[in-house]
């Protein structure tokens, strides 16, 4: 199956900082999603982005399918952004996640 690799595994930021999370995959995909899992365990879909760029407030994502990677940008981070960010591919294979901690 497709291999998914997320980086960095852990990220600690001060409130207000910007960050970039990366998802690499080993083969072409038809579908890619980014999720945020909050500290209480609830998973929320952030972007459905098999290709191109999307933006939603302080978050944006870009998938370059030909290069087999996707990036999630978080600008002006807030403490509520803390949690684990996962990317998932079209066979519902999840990466190991990036654990983000935003300090006040």
């Amino acid at each position, binding site marked *: 199956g497709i291999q998914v690799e997320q980086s960095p595994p852990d990220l600690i930021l001060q409130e207000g900082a910007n960050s970039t999370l990366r998802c690499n995959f080993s083969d072409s995909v*038809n*579908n890619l999603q980014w999720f945020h899992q909050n500290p209480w*365990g*609830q998973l929320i*879909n952030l972007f*459905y982005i098999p290709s191109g760029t999307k933006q939603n407030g302080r978050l944006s994502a870009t998938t370059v399918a030909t290069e087999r990677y996707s990036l999630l940008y978080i600008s002006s981070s807030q403490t509520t952004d803390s949690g684990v960010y996962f990317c998932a591919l*079209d*066979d519902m294979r*999840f990466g190991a996640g990036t*654990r983000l901690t935003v300090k006040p």
Partner: protein
Amino acid sequence: EADIYQTPRYLVIGTGKKITLECSQTMGHDKMYWYQQDPGMELHLIHYSYGVNSTEKGDLSSESTVSRIRTEHFPLTLESARPSHTSQYLCASSEYSLTGWITDTQYFGPGTRLTVL
């Protein structure tokens, strides 16, 4: 806001018991999924379904079963619980198109935290 529900939210049981975790969604989604997740770790697909009377196995399916008799309901059963089953179980749903696995966003329930003593 997604309308997908899981019960119970927390369950503590003894080894060898048979348990059923419930999942329901009111969005009319055809595709539903069960995942197992240890705290802070990646999700592992257990089972999924394309629609009524459809069930498929994922990576961790060997010790559990599912059924899909109604579109909105997708229960997961562990025939004989073991301490190794202690984990969080997440149910999800999405729309499904014949052109691919997922055509729209995937919505997750709040999860069931299972502890097997």
